[in-house]
Structure formats: C-alpha cells, structure tokens
C-alpha cells in the first residue's frame, strides 16, 4: 500500500539572531509525515525539535526551505480565509498544561474559543453539546465545562488542552512534550488517550519528546535531531534495534531501564561530534531508514 504524505518538509532552515551571526536552530532538514501515522521527533534540549514543530505550524517565518501540507506550500498561504482553514487543519498540544491554559477562562470557554474565531456552532445548545462531546472524548465529563483550569489536576488539564486541539476537527496535531510535565501514572493515561483518539479520528501526529521509551512506544517512525539537523530517521523499531548513527547509539545507551540487573552492567556510549568537510547526504540504509552522513562516515559506522 502506498502511503500518502500529508506533510513534506524540504530543506527547512530556521535561524535566529542577526544575519551576520545567526543561531542555526534548525539547519537544513528534510522529512515527511505519512497520513495517519505518528512521527516521533527526539533530541536533547537545544537540538531544534521544538523549533521544527513551531515552524511547521507557522509560528515563525522560516529562513529557508519550504513546508508543504496536503500539497500546499504553507508559506504561500496569504488570504485570511485560507489561513483560517490551515489553522483549523493543524493544531498543537503544549508541554505545560499549567501555562498553556488561561486561568481566567472556564474549560468550556477554552474549548470554544476556536468556534468564535471560525464562526462555528453559533447555536448555544449545539455548542454546549459539542463541548460535552469533546470533554467526553478526552475522558472528562460534561459537568467539567463550567470549571476553571485551577480546579483540575495536571492530567485533567492536559486533557482539556487535548480537547481544545480537537475542537476544530484537525487532521494534523503537533504535540510538543505533551506528557513531560505529568506524573508517571498520568503519562500513561494521556498516551493511551492520544493513541485512542488517533485511531478514532484518523489523526496524524508529530510527537516531540525527549523521553525515548515513550517516543518508541507511541511512534511509527522516529527522527533523531542533533544540533539542528536530523541525523537519523526511520521506522521506530529500526531506530531502536539497528541504530546506525553514533549519536543515536549514544542517546539510546543513556536511557535507564527499569531493570536493575542490566543497569548494573550497562555502559554508556559517549558521542564525539565530528566536523566534516565532505558532502553530508541522507543515505538510505534500509527501507525508509536514512542516516545523515558522508559516504566515508557511513562506511565507518557499520553496525
């Protein structure tokens, strides 16, 4: 079955600071996301993973490269009507459910803000019904609609954040560290919820996180970022079982596992960054599994 690419990113560059001495947060990355899949984006702080997500949803004007969503170049969207349509299609879930919800608004107001902007569900009864439906979809109940954010626990707040993201029936959701601020037992609840609504609504996710165990669990494919570049991308199992880039190997070797026997013998593989002069390109090492390297490096980095 040939999968349809819902998002294509080509040569994306996102620089900050002055033109003479730019900070290259994202430095020439290319990837695509298939419709209905979850692409996990992992990397350390400062690797450019959040910036990538924010560029895709047009929170920044890109420095270079282009982003096509459903075949359309998103930088070329000019009219208010088209922009509104794009905003409806692509939504975001943020890391900190305490900071990303307005404490002066009720759950219902938070969820329906998008309806006002897009002129949807103008009938009061219809709107209340939709809010109730969304709350129930994320595991809350209709009684919660009139409560303020501070009346909810962290996990419940993140559920409201998810309900807000779902309110406009998007097809693509960027989840930027959606579970990092939550407790372990609550993380599992939210991840299960994300998986369940993905199946029900055929959503596509870009899941940005630094917790590799969770990313592996939720993603179909994974992209590993380091210093603004994607160093390796491929099916989740390939990245974990047969990582090729030394940075990926180093990152995987650093993840502690809930297994004392193996932890006692585990050795961390340190990563030393190599500056190269050669042409860096994405080599396909197995189906859909790419490593960004020079030919010389790739030959050296055998399994």
């Amino acid at each position: 079955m040939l999968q349809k690419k819902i998002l294509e990113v080509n040569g994306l560059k996102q620089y900050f600071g002055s033109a003479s001495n730019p900070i290259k947060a994202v430095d020439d990355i290319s990837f695509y996301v298939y419709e209905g899949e979850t692409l996990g984006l992992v990397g350390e702080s400062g690797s450019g993973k959040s910036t990538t997500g924010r560029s895709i949803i047009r929170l920044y004007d890109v420095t270079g490269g282009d982003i096509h969503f459903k075949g359309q170049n998103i930088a070329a969207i000019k009219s208010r009507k088209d922009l509104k349509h794009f905003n409806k299609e692509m939504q975001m879930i943020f890391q900190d459910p305490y900071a990303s919800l307005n404490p002066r608004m009720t759950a219902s107001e938070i969820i329906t803000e998008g309806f006002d902007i897009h002129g949807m569900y103008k009938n009061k009864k219809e709107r209340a019904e939709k809010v109730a439906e969304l709350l129930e979809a994320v595991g809350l109940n209709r009684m919660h609609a009139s409560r303020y954010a501070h009346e909810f626990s962290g996990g419940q707040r993140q559920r409201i954040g998810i309900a807000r993201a779902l309110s406009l029936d998007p097809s693509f959701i960027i989840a930027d560290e959606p579970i990092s601020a939550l407790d372990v037992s609550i993380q599992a609840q939210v991840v299960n919820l994300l998986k369940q609504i993905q199946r029900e609504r055929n959503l596509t996710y870009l899941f940005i996180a630094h917790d590799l165990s969770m990313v592996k669990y939720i993603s179909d494919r994974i992209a590993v970022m380091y210093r603004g570049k994607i160093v390796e991308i491929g099916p989740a199992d390939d990245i974990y079982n047969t990582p090729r880039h030394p940075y990926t190997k180093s990152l995987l070797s650093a993840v502690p596992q809930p297994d004392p026997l193996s932890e006692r013998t585990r050795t961390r593989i340190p990563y030393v960054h190599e500056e190269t002069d050669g042409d860096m390109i994405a080599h396909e090492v197995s189906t859909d599994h790419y490593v960004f390297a020079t030919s010389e490096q790739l030959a050296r980095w055998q399994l």
Partner: protein
Amino acid sequence: MKPKLLQVKDLHVHFKTYAGIVQAVRGVSFELYEGETLAIVGESGSGKSVTSNALMKLIPQPPGIYAGGEILFNGRDIIPLSDKEMAKIRGNDIAMIFQDPMTSLNPTMKIGKQITEVILQHKAASRSDAKERAMELLNLVGIPFPEKRYKQYPHELSGGMRQRIVIAIALAANPKLLIADEPTTALDVTIQAQILELMKDIQKRSNTSIIFITHDLGVVANVADRVAVMYAGQIVEYGTVNEIFYNPKHPYTWGLLGSMPDLSNSSDELLRTIPGSPPNLIHPPVGDAFAPRNEFAMAIDYEAEPPMFQVSPTHFAKTWLLHPDAPKIDVPQVVQQRIDRYVKEGEA
C-alpha cells in the same frame, strides 16, 4: 553489617493551610546504612520531597508542623534541635542537591566563591587552603578547566556543568549523607547518565550515604541499593532494588511498573494505567489510601489501614493482599512478562 547512619521512625509532617491541615507525611519509617543508596519513588504529592526536606529540617514552621516521630542521625534525634545546632549539621553532615541547578546557584556570585564559602563556613581553613580544596572538588566532579570555571558565573555554564557545581558544593564539607531531590530531572538523558555515574563514583570513593528522590524507575534501577515506594504520604513498599523490581507485592508498585513503557514494549497494546488520581491529604481516605485506584481492592481496604506485611527480612509491603486470608492475586501479566524477560536476559 554496615553501621546505621540514619533511622526515621514514624515521621509525621503536617501543613496548615486555609483549607485545612494537609497531612503530607503520615508515618514514614526507614533506615539508611553507611555507603548505601536509598531511592524514594512516588508521584507528585506523595510526600517524597517533604520527607527529604524534613531530614534537613527545611520545613518552614509555620505552616509546617513536625507532628510526630523521630529522625535519628547517628543515633541522635534532630527534630528537637535548635536552628543554630541544625546549621552545624547542614552542609557538614547532611548536604542536599536540588532539581534545578539554575535556582540553587547564586547567579550573581562567581562559582569559586560559592564553593569556598561552604568550606570556610564549616572548616577552619585559610582562603588559600579553601581555594585548593575547591579546585580538588571541581576536578572530582569532572569539570574541565577548573581554573577558568572558578572565576565564571553560573550562566556561563551548561545545565550539566551547573549540576556538577551544585554537587561540588554539596560535597565541600565531606557530608556523610547526601540527599538528592530529583537531581537529574531537568537534564537531558545523556547528561543524566553522566551525573548518575559521577554520583556513584563519589559514593564508592568516600562511602557517602545517598537518599535519591525521583519519579523515574529507570533511574532508580540504576542507582539504588534499596527502594521505598511512597503513596499518599506513606511508604507502601520497601525492599532491596531487586525485590522491588523483580518481586513487587504492592498493587501501586505494579501500576508504576506497568505504566512505564520500556524500549521493547509493543506499540499495539495500550499501556496499563492507574486510573484516577491521588487522594486529597486534607482528608486522607479511611482504610487503604490506594483503594479507590486499586482494581484488586477488597472490602477491608475501605475500612482499615493495612499494616506493613513482611515478605522477606528486607522486603515489606503495606497491602491487605498479603494477609493470609486474602485471595491470591498474581502480578499483572504485562508486568510479570517483563520481569521474566529481564531475569532471563540477566542470566544469559
């Protein structure tokens, strides 16, 4: 048998709030031996940080109240000690490392000064001796170019380097007990691995005892000799690291182990979750506090609090499931399968 450094007996800590009295720690008891690492795991609000702050007598009073129990450090109860007496123990005998290195360092003070300050405070040393000792410490915690770093400010260093400085300050007076409250939570995994290696290395050299507070079971498996699992202000399971990970007895521990995917989890199955959220400790539930979230709860769980049942000489769990009359409940399949796989891989 190693000598006992710390013994906590039936500790109760309460906080007065407008809404009522929050019973944050409700009868915690544990022991710590010299050169040993005890990990305290639990979710936010379980009382793990309050317990560790109580050991340093860092609970502000008011609103905090030491409502009962004893903290015996080298056989002496520190709860009745005055602030002045406590100041001698802090830093000297017991030191603490906090989660966020940026907020625990003074942004306007050079790194060298922050380290020598502690040495001069606790040891009768000259300035030049203190500087020499500070250099030693910077080397010990693996800071490259210590001469240069000595004169820098915290903002000039990366997060991992800052946490190393915090550790150097904590070690400045050779404490016998190091309390680390989520010391790697704010760091990237590769940096976390380095800091954990560093702490284990220091422990081996100086025989320091460590209390490690964390919510990450992977980190626990890496650092701990013994583990205390906390829920709703109480220790619900207590044992050696192998006992907790390979023979867990409390349904809450099962839940924690089951809700964390490991690298070999299949993504087709949903994660096991613990439904609901922790109780409000202004009105702690009657009986077993975990009962409303426990799929194996029995009638008695809603009536009487379970005692600590002994599983082995070193392993205890606070659940009625261990009562001789309770029905036999097996460890949930997902958790058991994972344990079997780990043990098999460990033997191979």
